[in-house]
């Protein structure tokens, strides 16, 4: 039997209406969703669609150059190729990393680590996974492009160090901006992966050197393939920073130090401009921008001479006998000594139960101020320090800017320590003992100074009282040659001492270098009169000859020249060099010689050219550049190791 009507009594009409209403309701739901997407949420999704097709390819601005005071290039840029990945366009991450590791001969983990660093950034933002690839590697990647979807090769300028490792501590190095820096206000304009100055001038002058990154807005398809450039903003090169440092002098300073660890700071006595600023050993700043071989990094870290430490700025050394200048000045100013005051030195001075020895064990005999400086008699200064007291010594040291950062303008400049009774109470919660004042008088005990401070101190003595703020930058010039900043000498203060004090002290310092028995004879130049002071500072008590390197005394020398009308002051610290006279003074001599050669005051030796086989020309060894052998006794004393303490 056929049922020709629908199940319901009304012929199915109600059920049809029910189904129709159901269909209507579901369509209404679809329409509501479309309304939500296309009307309510349209702006957001439109943005996402724009992001989909438009990519911003950053174009890094070349950093500004760094020049020496004469416009010679210290740091500039050179093009470098890096491999960037746009994560959004990568189909198989693991496979791609494998391929890159194989093609570039890199450690897989290294690439992965860099990749993971970029997590959280927009997926279309290029992520640099390998920098500084060679031309061969680049060609290899180009040939294998098909298996490397999402990979781009980017050209960007990187730092080129015209003189290799020269002045590396001063110039500093670059590194990728880290997370903490990115969160700070200073770097809010930066993106992850950007390179910034991490130390030295590069860091201190980052805002001037950095330049403005540009970029291209490009349209891409779903595979990230370039279609066209939509808009382009050019990058603008960073400003040029011209330093006060003289390239030739810097070279001379570093050559003079040779393999020795330590620092050399040369300063213009009348402006405070730093003319040479070296810390030895140095490092290769180029390695920080590219790929530092792990072995090299390990070597840097394990080297007991600490090549990564900026010794000129952050090295704190007991100034040793160079500090006797301060003690002498304090004595003269306080009226405790004068030109004719004499002290008997029999090799030691007994204070309470303790015996303080002079470096000259057999004693200097009767010593006046001039001789005390010339021969660096310790007993003279023990007695003077005892009478001055630590607070008075400190007051004069501080007048010379010792014990506080000088404001050179580089990060983490150390201040050193000039102890007082109050300082000790605060630092150790203990009273000052009178016996502790005696070593302070000869620059030992708690006293610590930096090479920059020592250079400033001797410059202040040379110019008789003006303390200039050490200055590293002469001017900043933009890409069009417009001077943005010009620096003039900044007087940080004056010592306010009697001219007579300076006359007496300077005479003593002249004697150190130029008179028989003077401890600094090896700093002597024949053409220019040099004045200076040797120093040796103990690293451990009771240091002995032949001790392990790290226990040997530091050798120091501070000097200025010309004696009559000072222009340049130099401070040299040779770590574990033992004797200021034999280790630091010759370095000073070489720096001063280079300076005066540059000025034309000392004639440069003309190399004799002798015809060689096959027409080669070979220069004769530079005899005059070798340390001068002073004709009188001090040299003999120095060479016999009979130096000051």
């Amino acid at each position, binding site marked *: 039997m056929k049922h020709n009507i629908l199940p319901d009594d009304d012929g199915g009409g109600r059920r049809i209406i029910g*189904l129709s209403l159901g269909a209507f309701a579901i369509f209404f739901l*679809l329409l509501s*969703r479309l309304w939500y*997407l296309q009307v309510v949420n349209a702006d957001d*999704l439109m943005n996402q*669609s724009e992001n989909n*097709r438009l990519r911003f390819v950053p174009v890094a601005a070349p950093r500004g150059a760094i020049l020496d005071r004469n416009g010679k290039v210290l740091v500039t840029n050179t093009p470098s190729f890096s491999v960037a990945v746009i994560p959004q366009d990568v189909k198989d991450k693991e496979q791609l990393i494998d391929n890159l590791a194989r093609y570039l001969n890199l450690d897989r983990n290294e690439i992965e680590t860099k990749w993971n660093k970029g997590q959280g950034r927009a*997926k279309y933002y290029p992520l640099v996974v390998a920098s500084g690839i060679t031309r061969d590697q680049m060609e290899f990647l180009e040939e294998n492009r098909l298996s490397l979807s999402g990979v781009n090769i980017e050209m960007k300028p990187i730092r080129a160090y015209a003189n290799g490792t020269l002045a590396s501590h001063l110039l500093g190095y670059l590194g990728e901006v880290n997370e903490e820096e990115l969160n700070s206000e200073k770097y809010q304009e930066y993106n992850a992966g950007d390179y910034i100055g991490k130390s030295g001038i590069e860091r201190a002058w980052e805002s001037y050197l950095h330049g403005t990154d540009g970029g291209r807005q490009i349209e891409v398809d779903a595979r990230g393939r370039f279609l066209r450039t939509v808009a382009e903003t050019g990058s603008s090169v960073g400003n040029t920073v011209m330093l006060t440092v003289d390239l030739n002098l810097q070279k001379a300073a570093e050559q003079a130090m040779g393999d020795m660890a330590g620092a050399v700071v040369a300063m213009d006595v009348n402006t405070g401009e730093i003319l040479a600023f070296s810390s030895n050993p140095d490092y290769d700043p180029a390695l920080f921008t590219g790929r530092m071989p792990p072995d090299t990094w390990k070597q840097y870290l394990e080297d007991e001479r600490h090549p990564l430490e900026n010794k000129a700025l952050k090295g704190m050394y007991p100034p040793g006998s160079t500090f006797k200048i301060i003690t002498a000045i304090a004595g003269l100013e306080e009226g405790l000594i004068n030109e004719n005051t004499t002290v008997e030195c029999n090799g030691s001075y007994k204070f309470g139960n303790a015996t303080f020895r002079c470096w000259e064990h057999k004693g200097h005999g009767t010593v006046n101020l001039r001789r005390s400086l010339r021969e660096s008699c310790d007993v003279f200064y023990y007695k003077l320090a005892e009478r001055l007291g630590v607070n008075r010594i400190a007051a004069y040291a501080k007048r010379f800017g010792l014990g506080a950062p000088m404001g050179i303008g580089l990060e983490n400049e150390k201040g050193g320590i000039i102890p007082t009774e109050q300082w000790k109470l605060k630092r150790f919660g203990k009273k000052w003992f009178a016996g502790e004042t005696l070593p302070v008088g000869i620059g030992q005990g708690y006293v610590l100074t930096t090479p920059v401070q020592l250079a400033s101190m001797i410059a202040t003595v040379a110019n008789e009282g003006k303390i200039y703020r050490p200055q590293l930058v002469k001017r900043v010039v933009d890409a069009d040659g417009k001077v943005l900043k010009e620096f003039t000498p900044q007087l940080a203060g004056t010592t306010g001492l009697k001219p007579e004090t300076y006359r007496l002290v300077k005479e003593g310092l002249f004697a150190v270098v130029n008179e028989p028995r003077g401890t600094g004879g090896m700093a002597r130049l024949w053409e220019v009169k040099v004045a200076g002071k040797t120093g040796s500072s103990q690293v451990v008590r009771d240091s002995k000859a032949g001790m392990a390197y790290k226990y040997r005394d530091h050798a120091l020398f501070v000097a200025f020249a010309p004696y009559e009308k000072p222009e340049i002051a130099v401070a040299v610290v040779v770590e574990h060099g033992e004797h200021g006279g034999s280790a630091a003074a010759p370095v000073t001599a070489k720096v001063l010689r280079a300076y005066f050669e540059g000025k034309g005051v000392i004639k440069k030796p003309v190399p004799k050219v002798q015809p060689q086989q096959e027409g080669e020309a070979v220069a004769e060894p530079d005899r005059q550049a070798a340390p001068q052998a002073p004709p009188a006794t001090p040299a003999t004393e120095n060479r016999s190791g009979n130096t000051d303490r």
Partner: protein
Amino acid sequence: MFDRRLFTNFDWTLLGVVLLITAFGVVNIYSASSSYRDIGTPYYLKQLYWIFAGLILCLTVCSLDYHMLEDFAYWLYGGVLVLLVLVLVAGKTSMGATRWIHLGFFNMQPSEPMKIVIIMTFARFFSRYPIFKGLTLKDLVYPLLILGAPALLIMKQPDLGTAVLVSLIGGTMLLFVGVRWSALASLFAAALPIVYGAWTFGLHDYQKNRIYNFLNPDLDPLGSGYHIIQSKIAVGSGATFGKGFMQGTQSQLRFLPEQHTDFAFSVFAEEWGFAGCLLMLTLYLFLILWGLSIAKRCNDRFGSLLAVGVSAMLFWHIVINMGMVIGLLPVVGVPLPFFSYGGTSMVTSMVGVGILLNISMRRFMF
């Protein structure tokens, strides 16, 4: 013998709406595939061939009295069921799924005719089944077996989309016939462990992933969540009036996957905006309501059931496809009738329309 009344009663409205939708579809495919110019015959042209073939089939179907189908229904059902078993035994595997039987000159996908065949079979079954106050649980045994067998075979291929569609079509017809509340409640209670079992043992990992990603597309934005995210962006960025014909950046730059087939509506939504979508939804709603009105106006139960079945088939295709492209439903690969590129879908839909036209023009004949 041709009855003139057939021509005078021809449902021009229904054919007009269908042709309007197919026209929009062709225009849309032209835009969606414009970035594929390098491949042989353009898609829009191939779609026109399919429309032509579909129309011939549609007119052929409507020219034969649909009552004939009642006699063939079970035979057809049995035949297609055998083909579905054959697919699993000796089918052609492509992209991890075994859905086709190689027939020498073309590959046949038996799950597609099953959509129409299940409608015919149910119509036949219920047209002779005495129902007074709705189907009881006992009454549902045979229908569920009829429905369950092809659904499970299709799921096994695996083709979740078609299996769900076949079930939804059958389910809608059952609701139309009338099911008792008590039977519905029992079915629901029985369905829970079945769904659980199907989820645990029946579904492939990629199918589960689709559901996970439907619930949270950001889980794998470049993998299986990519479709949903990109499609939503396309639809939404079309805003009120769209980006304009051939101006859809999502589609022109190929961010949209399968943009001329399953995701054709996303392209349309991007280029024509909410205004265009409103028009399309209206056309589709009209089509469904018109189909249901044919069921209502039909004077025999078999015809009514057929019309409801075809309407349900079109309806669920539309809802699942649109729901999928606007992120309301998981991505299951169901085309939009008359709109998405593809011969199979066009032919099946046109056969369905042929049946509707057939019933509509014969509503006066007894």
